[in-house]
C-alpha cells in the first residue's frame, strides 16, 4: 500500500520500504540491505506520489443508506490532473440504483435527479437551489475514465475528457453536474461518514485491522 513491499532478491522474504519513495531497507530475515532502483530520484523532494488505489470498498461490499440496504455492483475509476477517484455503482434493495463516490476516502452518496434545468457550463462560486437547498460550485474537474469494473447502468466507455461540477451546501449536501452527455445530468445527494454506512465485506489491507 503506502509502504511498498517487494520480495528480497537474496532470500525471497517480503521486505517493506517505510514510505513510497524510500530507497533503503533491510531484509529482516537475511539482513541484506536493499536499495530501490525504480525511484525517480529527481522527483524526491519535488513531486509527491499518489497513493495506489486505496478504496476500502470492493464489488460485493454491502451497506445501508436511509434504511435501505445496498450492494456495490460496479465501479468507475476516474482520473484527473491531480489524481483519481472511484464511483461505486450501488444497487439498493428497492431496485433503484445510486452512486457512492469515494474520493481520497471522502464519501458521498448521490442519486440521479432528472428533470432540472441545468446550465451548459458553470464556474466555481455559482449558486443553485434544488429541493429548497442552496448549493455552491466548489470544484470543476476535467476527468476521464481510467477503468471500469462490474455492472454499470450505461454502456459507453470513452477516454476523452469530460467536465464535472461538484457542489456543496451549508448542510453537507452534495451534488454533481455531469457534462459527459449532450444533456448535462444532475445527481443529488449528501456527504456521508464511513461509519454511517455500516459497510460489510470490505477489502482487507495488509497490516491494518
Amino acid at each position, binding site marked *: 500500500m503506502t509502504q511498498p513491499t517487494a520480495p528480497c*532478491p537474496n532470500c525471497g522474504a517480503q521486505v517493506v520500504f517505510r514510505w513510497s519513495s524510500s530507497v533503503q531497507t533491510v531484509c529482516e530475515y537475511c539482513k541484506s540491505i536493499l536499495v530501490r*532502483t525504480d525511484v525517480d530520484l529527481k522527483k524526491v523532494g519535488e513531486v509527491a506520489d499518489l497513493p495506489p488505489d486505496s478504496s476500502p470498498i470492493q464489488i460485493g461490499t454491502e451497506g445501508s443508506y436511509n434504511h435501505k440496504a445496498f450492494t456495490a455492483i460496479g465501479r468507475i475509476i476516474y482520473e484527473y490532473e491531480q489524481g483519481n477517484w472511484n464511483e461505486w455503482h450501488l444497487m439498493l434493495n428497492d431496485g433503484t440504483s445510486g452512486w457512492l463516490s469515494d474520493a481520497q476516502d471522502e464519501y458521498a452518496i448521490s442519486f440521479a435527479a432528472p428533470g432540472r434545468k441545468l446550465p451548459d457550463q458553470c464556474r466555481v462560486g455559482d449558486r443553485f437551489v434544488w429541493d429548497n437547498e442552496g448549493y455552491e460550485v466548489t470544484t470543476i474537474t476535467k476527468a476521464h475514465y481510467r477503468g471500469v469494473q462490474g455492472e454499470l447502468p450505461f454502456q459507453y466507455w470513452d477516454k476523452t475528457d469530460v467536465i464535472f461540477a461538484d457542489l*456543496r451546501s451549508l448542510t453537507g*449536501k452534495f451534488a454533481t453536474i455531469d457534462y459527459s452527455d449532450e444533456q448535462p445530468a444532475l445527481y443529488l445527494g449528501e456527504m456521508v461518514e464511513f461509519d454511517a454506512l455500516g459497510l460489510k465485506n470490505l477489502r482487507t489491507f495488509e497490516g491494518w485491522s
Partner: protein
Amino acid sequence: MSAGGRTPPGKPQTRALNCPGCGAALTVRSFNNAVTIVCDSCHSILDAKDPNLQILQQFKAATDKDRPHIPLGTRGKIRGTDYEVIGFERRTIHVEGVAYSWHEYVLFNPFKGFRYLTEYDGHWNDCSTLKALPDVVSFSSPPKVKYLGETYKHFQTARASTSFVLGEFPWQVRVGESVEVSDYVSPPRVLSSEQTGNEVTWSMGEYMLGRDVWKAFRLPGSPPEAKGVYENQPSPMSGEVKSIWLTFAFLLLALVVLMIGFDLSAQNKDVFTGYYKYDSNQRGEASFVTDDFEVKGHTSNVELKTTTDLNNRWIYLNYALINETTGQAFDFGREVSYYHGYDSDGSWSEGSANDAVAVPGVPPGRYYLRVEPEGDPGHGMTYYTVTVKRDVPQYSFYAIALGALLLPAILLSWRALSFEHLRWAESDHPMISTSGGDE
C-alpha cells in the same frame, strides 16, 4: 490523453547490496552529508562510483533539506484511530517580504481516510476536510464565517506555495505550486480555505500540543518548543477572566454590605467638645489640660477634630490623649494652616482651617486631653474648637480594600489581553495598541 498526474508506483524494484570483496553484509553510514557503505567483515569501503551508493547519496541529499519530525511510515493514534504518516510537505508564504514556512503531515487510514497534521514554530494542529460549507457572514469587517454554530474571525489570507514534498499525497503536489489560503480562527479551532482557480476546499483544524503528538506517535525525545502565540492557540486564561470579574462583583457586594454594617454599628458619638483661644503673642506656658470625658465601648478609634478660624495663618497643636486611670497616652501633633488669595489665574486656596485625625486602638476608659498650641508670634488670636468623637468609620480602608480586590482581576484581564495582542500581532488585523504599533 492521460493528464500529468502520475499513476501510482508499481512493485518496487530492488537490488541487494553485498560486499564485492567478501560477500558479507554491508553497513550504511552517514557522515555529515555523505553516505558511505562499509563492509563489517573485510572493512572495505564501497567504491564511490557504485550505482547503489550513488542512489543512497542522492536520496540523502534530496531528503535532508527538511527532515519531518514524524518520520514517514510512522503510525500513531489520533481520535481513537490508527493513522500512518504517508506524506510530508513544507509550504511557504511571504508577508511583507519575510518568508514563513510551516509543515504538513498527511495521515492515512484505509477505512477512515485522510487527516492532516500541521506544524508551525512548535504549534500543532489536527486537521480534516469539511463536509459542509461554512457560512460567510456578510457585511462583517474583518470578515467572519460561521460553522456549526461557531463564528470564526478572519486571521490571514496569503498565497502559499509548496517548497518541499516527500511521500504520498491524495492529490498531486509539486514544488512551486501555490494556492490562496485564508484562515479564520475561533480558538482552539481554525477554518482554512484553499483556493485555486477551479477548486475551493475547506478544512478545520484543532490546536494540539506537541507533547500529545509525541505521545500519539510514540516519538523519542521531546517536541520542539512552541514559540509565540499561534493563531488558534487556546488562551490559558479565556474562561478565567469572566469568572474572576463575577467573583469580584460578589466580593464588591460583600464589601458594600460590610461598609453599611459598620456604618450602622459604629458609635460615631461626640464625647467631648471644648472651645479655646490661643494668643501667639502671649508669653508663658501655653499648654493646658481639658476636663476628662468618658470613652465607651470596645477598643476602637477616637477622632479628634480641630476647627479654627485661621485666615492666612497657621497653628501647630501638640495633642496628648491621656488615660486618667492607666496613664496610657496617645501623643501626636497637628499642623493646621489655611491660606487663600487672588492672583492672575483667579482665586486660590491652600490647606484648610479644619483638621481631623483618627487615633487608633483606644481602649475604653476615662481620658483627658493635654494641648500645647504653637504659632507664629504676630499672628495674634486664634479661636479654635476641639471635638472628640468615639468610633468613627475609616473610609480610607474601604478604598484600600477595593483596590486590593480589583488588583488580581485587573492583572488577569491585562494578561489575557496581552495574550490576544500577541495572537493577532501576526495576523492581517493586528490589535491597536496604545503604546503605538510596529509600523
